[in-house]
Each structure stands twice: as structure tokens, then as C-alpha cells.
């Protein structure tokens, strides 16, 4: 058998403590997580359970107190601040509840932005941007500005930006939080489809029905994984066969 491909994201024994001494809070405790290309994992848990800490660590926006975070096989802790910034720009895309698109720029310009930061010429970026906009179903909105879009359209553009160019790791923090139920489902379908086409998607959500689109759902409580569920034929694999 051929060697398993390098995971897009890997957390090994990752802990994060906020504060110190008597005020120390375990935000994340000894977390292991492997996300391969094409995998879609949902994270659920009550407020303060460590979901946001996990996303920040996975994206290199925060550093663990102990343990290792690898993105595309690269140890974030072993990189300089500049190296981490470059890796983030090339490998990691974020999607937020409030879209975070730059107002005044068109959809195409928003999506091209991370590529241009990485030194791409507008000429080289253009076809890549068109392709990714079409992959999320908004190619006809390329010249529209965020302020003239619906929430669902803006979130599709944000997903396109998160996955433009070589980026394969999509970290989504409550991306459906500001959307109605039908539009929210459409956005999760886009995430599912991007995973089916090779992206690795980590979705934080409070909505069980959206988490159910993932390959598995990880539950956090007090910074620890307390359960992992998936479809019944994956239960044995996950070690959580329903009793």
C-alpha cells in the first residue's frame, strides 16, 4: 500500500492554557485531531468549551502552550513569525459569521486579495478567481460589491476567498450564524461540496443539522473531546458505536 498522504491539518497533544497560576484556564487539553484533504469535520460544544481556541490554533493565530500543530506537514511552532504568516496566507482560509469581506471591493477583488498579498499579478490571479467563484456558484457576482449582496451570496464569496489558489484548509467559525435556515443549508452544501473536491474543512457550529453534513462531529467540553459521532457505518471507525 502506498504511504498515506500528509494530512492538511494535524494537532498532536495540543493544550492551551490562558492566564497563569490561580487564574489559569485550560482552554484546550491534550487535543489530537487529524484532518485529511477531502475531510469535513464539525466541532460543537457549549460556549467556552474551546471551539474558538481550536480554530485559532489550527490557523496559526494562536500558539499552543504544549503540543504540535502541523499545517500541510509543517510544524507551525518551528516557523518564524514571517514563515507562519506566509503559510497562513498560502494554506489557510477563514470564513466568519459576518463574512468579513472588504467593502468597496468587488467580489473578484476580494477573492484576489490573498493572492495579490502573496505576490500574484492581477493577470495571473484573474482566471483562478473566476474558477473559484464559479465553484461556489457566484461567478455572475464577480463585479458586485459586498454591500449589494445578500448574506448567502457574501458568504459564498467569503468561501471562495478562503479556498482561492493553493489553499486547502478552510476554518469556518459559525458561517451560518447570520443566515436564515434555507440559506444556511445552502452554505453548508457549498462547504460539503468543497470538501468533496479536496478541501479540508473544519466547521464550528451550534446547529446540529449543519454539523450533520460533516464526516464526523467532535464535541468539546471544558477544552476536552468528550464525544465523536458520524454516520452509523463510521461509528466503529470512530470508536463510538451507539450502545
Amino acid at each position, binding site marked *: 500500500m502506498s504511504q498515506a498522504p500528509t494530512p492538511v491539518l494535524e494537532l498532536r497533544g495540543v493544550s492551551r492554557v490562558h492566564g497563569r497560576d490561580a487564574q489559569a484556564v485550560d482552554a484546550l487539553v491534550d487535543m489530537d485531531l487529524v484532518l485529511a484533504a477531502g475531510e469535513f469535520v464539525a466541532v460543537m460544544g*457549549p460556549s467556552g468549551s474551546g471551539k474558538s481556541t481550536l480554530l485559532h490554533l489550527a490557523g496559526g493565530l494562536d500558539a499552543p502552550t504544549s503540543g504540535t500543530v502541523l499545517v500541510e506537514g509543517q510544524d507551525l511552532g518551528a516557523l518564524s513569525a514571517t514563515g507562519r504568516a506566509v503559510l497562513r496566507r498560502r494554506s489557510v482560509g477563514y470564513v466568519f459569521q459576518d463574512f468579513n469581506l472588504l467593502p468597496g471591493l468587488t467580489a473578484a477583488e476580494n477573492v484576489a486579495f490573498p493572492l495579490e498579498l502573496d505576490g500574484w499579478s492581477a493577470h495571473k490571479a484573474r482566471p483562478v478567481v473566476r474558477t473559484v467563484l464559479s465553484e461556489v456558484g457566484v461567478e455572475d457576482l464577480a463585479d458586485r460589491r459586498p454591500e449589494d449582496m445578500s448574506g448567502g451570496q457574501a458568504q459564498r464569496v467569503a468561501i471562495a476567498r478562503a479556498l482561492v489558489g493553493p489553499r486547502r484548509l478552510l476554518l469556518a467559525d459559525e458561517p451560518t450564524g447570520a443566515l436564515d435556515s434555507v440559506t444556511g443549508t445552502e452554505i453548508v452544501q457549498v462547504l*460539503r461540496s468543497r470538501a468533496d473536491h479536496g478541501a479540508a474543512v473544519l466547521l464550528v457550529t451550534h*446547529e*446540529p*443539522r449543519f*454539523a*450533520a*453534513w*460533516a464526516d464526523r*462531529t467532535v464535541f468539546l*467540553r*471544558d477544552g*476536552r473531546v*468528550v*464525544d465523536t*459521532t*458520524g*454516520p*452509523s457505518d*463510521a*461509528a466503529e471507525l470512530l470508536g*463510538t458505536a*451507539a*450502545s
Partner: protein
Amino acid sequence: MEMMEVAVSVKHALLALLCGGPSTTYQLKKDFDRTTNQTWPVNIGQVSTTLQRLVRDGLVAGSDEPEDPGTSEWYLTDAGREEVARWWASPVSRERRGRDELVVKLALAVHVPGVDIAAVVQRQRSAMHQMLHDVTRARRTVDPGDLAARLVLDNHIFATEAELRWLDVVEAEVARAGRATATRGPVPAGGQTATDQATVEVAR
């Protein structure tokens, strides 16, 4: 419980299906299962018994005595047509759905001493999330043209999600009441971590 729901709804489902024109017992069974995406399959005996009752009540009539009763066609009478119209015009009562085992079980869990409530909740939650994954997968693969099947599966998804949210509330309320665990010690494997409830004892 599901059997009860079927008993309530088969009568009107058959009447509604017969609005599309006369049909045989077997075809009615097939159409019912297909419309609900096999979610509440009925057996042919149930369909047959229900049809007999509908004939007795004058809502349905059968075609004249064919040699093979299986090929007999059923059609709506005027009274049957009125009954369907009445059904469409009235909302469905939630109370008709019968006793819910989960609700009764959790009510008992907080009432009976020594039950590890947190473990009961977490096991239920885990199983329901797994079911949600399964139903969502079925929903993804359903024929895009099959609107009825999509709506039935969506209903399952939303109903399961509502129960999951209710479980969150149960857990929070139980914790607030200081009743999060029994005296028996940590939750078994697959359940919750014991950190936030290890020392709380069940009040008697």
C-alpha cells in the same frame, strides 16, 4: 410510537392518494411508502384493513368483484372526497403523537434516585447526532425531483435537532439543580467527562 402515528395517518393518507384516481391495494401501499421515502413503511395488511374500514364508513368503494381480489380497484366516494377536504383544512394536533419515551425516560431519571442523568443525556445525544448524520446523508442522496421525500427527511432533521436542543436544556437545568450525577462515580466510557459533576450527589 411510530406505529401509532401510522395508525392515525394511514386512513387520511389513503384517502389523499385516492384523490389522484382509483388504485389497487398494492399500488396504494407502494405510493404511501414512496411518498414518505420509506420512513414509515406500512404493510399490505394495514392498508387492506384500513381500506375495509373506509368502505364500511362509506368513504371508499371498490370496483365490482373481480376474480382476483388483489387487482380490485378502490375509488373515493363523495363522502370520502369531503373527508379529505376536511383533513386538508384542519391543522394536525401535536397531542395525537402519543407518549414520547425519551421525555418519560428523562422525567423518570430525575425522579428515581441513583440514575446517572448526565450519562443518560450524553448517550442519547450521541445516538441522535449519529442518526442526524444518517438522515442528512439520505437527504443528500435523494432524487432532486422527489420533493415529498426531501420534505419528509427535512422534518426528521428538524425534529431531531429540536430534541437535541431540548437535551442541552435538560443538561443545563439538571446541573443548575445540582443533580448532574448519581452517587455511583464517574460516567462510563463514551459518556461525559466527570470533571464538572464528579462530586455532586443525587438529592433524595
